[in-house]
């Protein structure tokens, strides 16, 4: 039996390799074309995170036409396998490779060191090199807006939050939404459930059911499938779309969605590669740059709440409102930001604590 299990494991690896190899395809024939490659953590049909990055690839194709050749590998697990996939893309003539999940950080950095002439771009990470840039979006700005709406609209005063992994990107979203909700509703509570996956519709639905069972009447998610929005639709409660507009999954349930619009960034970076002006760097863009966009408000939101949300959105765009403005204490009561002080980016990028008022312990 043991040897059979071993065979299975070997077979699975083999299958994964073959699948990835098929997706990559033959190396570029004409070197005059700029070859742009993407690595996705989920399927492009997830209607969330990976789908939205793939929209960027499609935009590149549409904008540059014959000047570029594009390829992508989807469903790449965050682990050793990722390094092999990125390496293969680099070895087969890619000029620029976008790796679009936090867990691809170390594999991307390793491969970047091996291919100094290939340009790498890693989404949501913090490791840079002369040929490795990072880019991220200030999703927490959108979280502030949905926090305001949730705080105003919850009847049970319990907001359910489906988290993927307790990494800074997710933790800062929870804190931002909670602070905003608390600012308009002192009695609001957040219940957080971690599902330890970015994409598993069945488990995301189970988490949604759990939260509703425990009294939540509004759901927020930081996972990639539309299952929680769909569940909210079935239950007749509210939810917020994540990464992509999920309205078609919950026409009554979705109040708004935080949409990631990566297209302007992707188009600019590919243009720079073609022109030879590409430089490494770290970009963290938000609502002002149009990277974080709120999808149209649902008709279910009362006009005064729409006004509140719009005011916040415009203030964030104008730079007059920062979702993390002191005084803010950490969960254990130790001071973090003084009155009027705004959170420095480095604090946000490494955020590993809940803010005061949040219940439950943040897993480490």
């Amino acid at each position, binding site marked *: 039996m043991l040897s059979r299990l071993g065979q299975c494991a070997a077979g699975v690896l083999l299958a994964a390799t*073959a699948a990835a190899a098929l997706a990559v395809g033959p190396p570029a024939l004409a070197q005059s074309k700029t070859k742009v490659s993407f690595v996705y953590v989920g399927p*492009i049909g997830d209607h969330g995170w990976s789908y939205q990055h793939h929209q960027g690839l499609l935009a590149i194709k549409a904008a540059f036409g014959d000047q570029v050749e594009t390829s992508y590998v989807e469903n790449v697990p965050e682990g050793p396998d990722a390094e092999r996939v990125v390496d293969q893309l680099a070895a087969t003539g890619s000029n620029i490779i976008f790796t679009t999940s936090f867990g691809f950080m170390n594999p991307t950095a390793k491969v970047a060191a091996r291919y100094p002439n290939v340009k790498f771009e890693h989404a949501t990470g913090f490791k840079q090199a002369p040929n490795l840039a990072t880019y991220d979006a200030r999703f927490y700005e959108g979280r502030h807006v949905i926090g305001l709406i949730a705080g105003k609209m919850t009847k049970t005063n319990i907001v359910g939050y489906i988290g993927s992994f307790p990494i800074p990107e997710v933790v800062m979203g929870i804190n931002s939404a909670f602070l905003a909700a608390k600012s308009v509703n002192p009695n609001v509570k957040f219940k957080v459930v*971690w599902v330890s996956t970015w994409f598993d519709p069945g488990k995301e639905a189970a988490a949604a059911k759990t939260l509703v069972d425990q009294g939540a009447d509004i759901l927020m998610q930081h996972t990639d499938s539309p299952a929680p929005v769909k569940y909210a639709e079935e239950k007749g409660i509210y939810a917020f779309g994540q990464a992509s507009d999920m309205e*078609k999954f919950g026409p009554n349930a979705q109040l708004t969605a935080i949409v990631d619009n990566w297209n302007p960034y992707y188009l600019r970076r590919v243009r720079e590669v073609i022109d030879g002006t590409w430089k490494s760097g770290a970009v963290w863009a938000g609502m002002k740059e149009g990277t974080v966009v709120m999808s149209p408000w649902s008709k279910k939101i009362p006009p005064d709440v729409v006004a509140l949300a719009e005011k916040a959105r415009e203030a964030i765009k104008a730079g007059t409102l920062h979702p993390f403005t002191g005084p803010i204490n950490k969960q254990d009561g130790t001071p973090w930001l003084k009155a009027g002080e705004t959170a420095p980016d480095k604090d946000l990028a490494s955020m590993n604590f809940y803010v005061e008022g949040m219940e439950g312990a943040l897993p480490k």
Partner: protein
Amino acid sequence: MDLVANILIGAMISATPLLLAASGELVTERAGVLNLGVEGMMIVGAIAGFSAMIATRSIPLALLAAVAAGAVMAALFGVLVLTLRANQVASGLALTMFGLGLSALWGQSYSGLSAPAFPHLYIPGLTDLPLVGELLFGHDLLIYVSLAVVALVAWVLRRTHIGLVLRAIGENHDAAHAIGYPVIAFRYLATMFGGAMAGLGGAYLSLVVTPLWVERMTAGRGWIALALVVFAAWRPWRVLLGAYLFGGITVLQLHSQALGVKVDAQLLAMLPYVATIAVLVLISRDTMRLRLNAPACLGKPFHAIT
């Protein structure tokens, strides 16, 4: 107490796709065929059921489509390994890859569509009982079907002539052939039953649990079902125990998080796997009996010597 009932209901929902797929695979393996394509058959069942539901708005037709799609996938596998005698491990993996690709292609125009709500059992009086009412009499119909499938599989394998022949073929196909039993035909049927149940398990995800279609929505459940069969030592009731344990702990850990219990999320995420394997290994720890339970001809190709 409502919370306990909610946890148990959630557990049964989480367990049912696994239970259906694993019960089917158990029959396949008992006949001596190792089909590693469960994940592929599940996902094809998921899209087949979903697309049929959209097209016909009929639950029986949707379920029929899922069952048929899974069985067709399994029959394809049967042609490869039973008729052409290809390697079962490699063919099973290929079937999974094929199923994932096929379902993604098939499902392109179905994402974002909504299936009608799935009916739940309602017996006036009984379902309204406090605490146990919904837990016993208020599930969606497929949960009762899945329990019936386990009972049926257990009964057929243990108590009927067909079950005896099936097991004999799995243990020693040459002997069964010598007595005159149609080894290949039986194996085709067992494999197709496995595919049908995997398809139904997939449809449970796309029609009841979520209910929507997203690419790769089975998310590895086919592999868990395969593991359950092995750790349950090829016994139907232990498959039920394993599946419910897995589903139960999955949902329990979600609830404990929402209640604010201080345990690492990573540890909790691992718990369903660890606990299920630990319990099933413990009750199946007698290596002699385990060896007796594992079908001796599992994965071996059959050549009829005339």
